[in-house]
């Protein structure tokens, strides 16, 4: 790629220290840590939608929070539009505050992410206030109005003076989106934006995001555990397992011909809404191990249906299988 990507993540690590029990802290044993994100790199092009998929505990939400600076990376670099985020020593760099003007985050739970005591107008106008933009009252009202209408809340004036608890889940998520879009960001980080919503409303929100992306050309990092929603609008998919990307590639290709055994299993258990198409499912036994004591070798080997002996020893790296399609499995060769 010759063009600078919208976002580039290089060797990102995020470890959370574990608070030891009283005894442990008395004996001053070495502190262990939760390896939430363990050496992750990827790039996101302008106007591209990258879905980060995985089960809970795979580190996908930590990545989202780290991207927007809610967590400080333990190691690694986040480069936004060619500028290192927060790294003052580097040139060129961009401060967190500047980043947050150009990148916005949508949270999972629309019942929790809105201040219950603020009106919808205050909520949507807040990014403008925080960044001291559009100070003129009339222009500010117009900006809020158009953001709400773009998010499908019409007539916008009806919502200005209402409180979040007066709205349904779908409406609240629209408010969240309006508030994220009011600064006209270039990057949107969406952390499971529809997982708490009913099916019919889920479709509306996904359609809205797809629509915004088409009209505004914004890039989206879409965090989800649900492959079926990914299939719907991602350009590329990154599948995560225990803090690592195990497979990344163009969405259609990954879904049609998954290479990593974990991706294969995930796709096979995604529910298909047709009883005639009940498929053979690869149901992995056990659960994701805790990310404090990682398995040796390939971290997926204890649950892998096709693991062989070397998997217990060697830690596979991502290898390029075809243009832009990479997977980390020792059984794969180019």
């Amino acid at each position: 790629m010759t063009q600078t990507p919208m976002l580039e993540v290089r060797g990102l690590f995020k470890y959370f220290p574990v608070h030891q029990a009283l005894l442990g802290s008395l004996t001053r044993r070495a502190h262990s840590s939760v390896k939430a994100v363990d050496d992750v790199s990827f790039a996101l092009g302008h106007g591209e939608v990258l879905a980060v998929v995985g089960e809970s505990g795979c580190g996908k939400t930590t990545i989202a929070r780290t991207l927007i600076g809610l967590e400080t990376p333990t190691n690694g670099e986040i480069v936004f539009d060619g500028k290192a985020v927060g790294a003052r020593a580097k040139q060129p760099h961009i401060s967190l505050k500047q980043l947050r003007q150009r990148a916005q985050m949508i949270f999972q739970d629309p019942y929790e992410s809105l201040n219950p005591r603020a009106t919808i107008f205050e909520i949507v106008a807040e990014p403008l206030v925080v960044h001291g933009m559009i100070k003129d009252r009339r222009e500010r009202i117009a900006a809020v109005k158009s953001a709400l209408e773009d998010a499908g809340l019409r007539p916008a004036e009806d919502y200005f003076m209402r409180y979040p608890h007066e709205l349904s889940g779908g409406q609240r998520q629209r408010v969240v989106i309006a508030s994220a879009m009011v600064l006209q960001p270039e990057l949107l980080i969406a952390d499971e934006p529809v997982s708490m919503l009913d099916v019919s409303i889920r479709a509306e929100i996904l359609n809205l995001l797809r629509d915004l992306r088409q009209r505004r050309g914004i890039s989206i990092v879409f965090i989800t555990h649900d492959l079926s929603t990914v299939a719907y609008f991602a350009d590329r998919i990154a599948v995560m397992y225990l803090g690592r990307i195990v497979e990344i590639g163009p969405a259609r290709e990954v879904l049609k011909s998954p290479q990593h055994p974990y991706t294969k299993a995930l796709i096979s258990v995604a529910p298909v809404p047709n009883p005639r198409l009940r498929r053979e499912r690869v149901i992995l036994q056990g659960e994701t191990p805790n990310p404090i004591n990682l398995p040796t070798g390939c971290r997926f080997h204890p649950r892998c249906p096709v693991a062989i002996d070397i998997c217990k020893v060697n830690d596979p790296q991502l290898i390029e299988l075809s243009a832009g399609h990479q997977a980390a499995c020792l059984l794969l060769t180019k």
Partner: protein
Amino acid sequence: MGEHWTLFLRNIQEFWRTFRQNKLGMVGGFLVLVATLTAIFAPALTSYDASEIIRDSNNRALTFAPPSVHGILGTDDAGHDVWSQLVYGARISLVVGFMAGFIAMFVGSALGIVAGYFGGKIDSLIMRITDVLLVIPDLPLMLVLVATIRQMELKISPLVVLIIVIGLLYWTSTARLIRSQVLTVKERQFVARARAIGAGHWHIIRKHILPQLMPLIVTNTVLILSTAILIESGLAFLGLGDPTRPSWGTMLNFAFDRSAISNGAWWFYLPPGIAILWVSLGCILLGNVLEEMLNPRLTAHHLEGEAGMIAIAEAESKG
């Protein structure tokens, strides 16, 4: 902005509608309201001055006159009208109580927010101070403090001394309460969202944390008021009030000092006692009811099933 005003009125109306249905709350509100009105309109409620000596036809001071002989509540040992002392005393008691209560509330909330929001060393420091204040017995400490300050002859009114001492010693429970609430609020997603937007600490505290604390602060203030009034009465009863401007506590102090009980002058010591009870009971009833009303926020969740939906439907039909 007109819309804000209508919104405000709507909230007030909604509040009043719920409040009205609560009998205990109405009683509490009534008690507090009557006491406050009495204090404000004291001169209109009596024709005597509190320090005026009532004399009989022989121009002798009318001492320990029962209500049947003089006025509404008779006279005290020096011939002062008890009713007048009571209504003017309301001013002193309530002013000291309210001011001290507000200081305690303000200091407590501010320190609680700082401790809870920033955490770390500042939190430890503030919490250690509250620990120390909690283990020292209040009454002896206050007696010593008030007496010491008086000794210094700083030309401050004894009432101001009382206000400051009570206010600066009674913020600890508020601070702890507010701090624990801040600890939960700051973990909520809308605070994370505000940070993700790029908001600074001051903005987050003012716009996101404080509004969630308001119900707690209001409730706590009302309850602290009652404590402050009781403490003021206690200190004044022990003789630390301003003898030239008697509060209800001072009246009790006088009554006991001047053998009202052995004289059977119940009209001298019962009314201030009842007045203190009246106000503190009012505050406590009001505070408890406010707590009940303001704390459980209606947060029905969509996966909670139909019962939750009905709750939402109700909330919507109210709005």
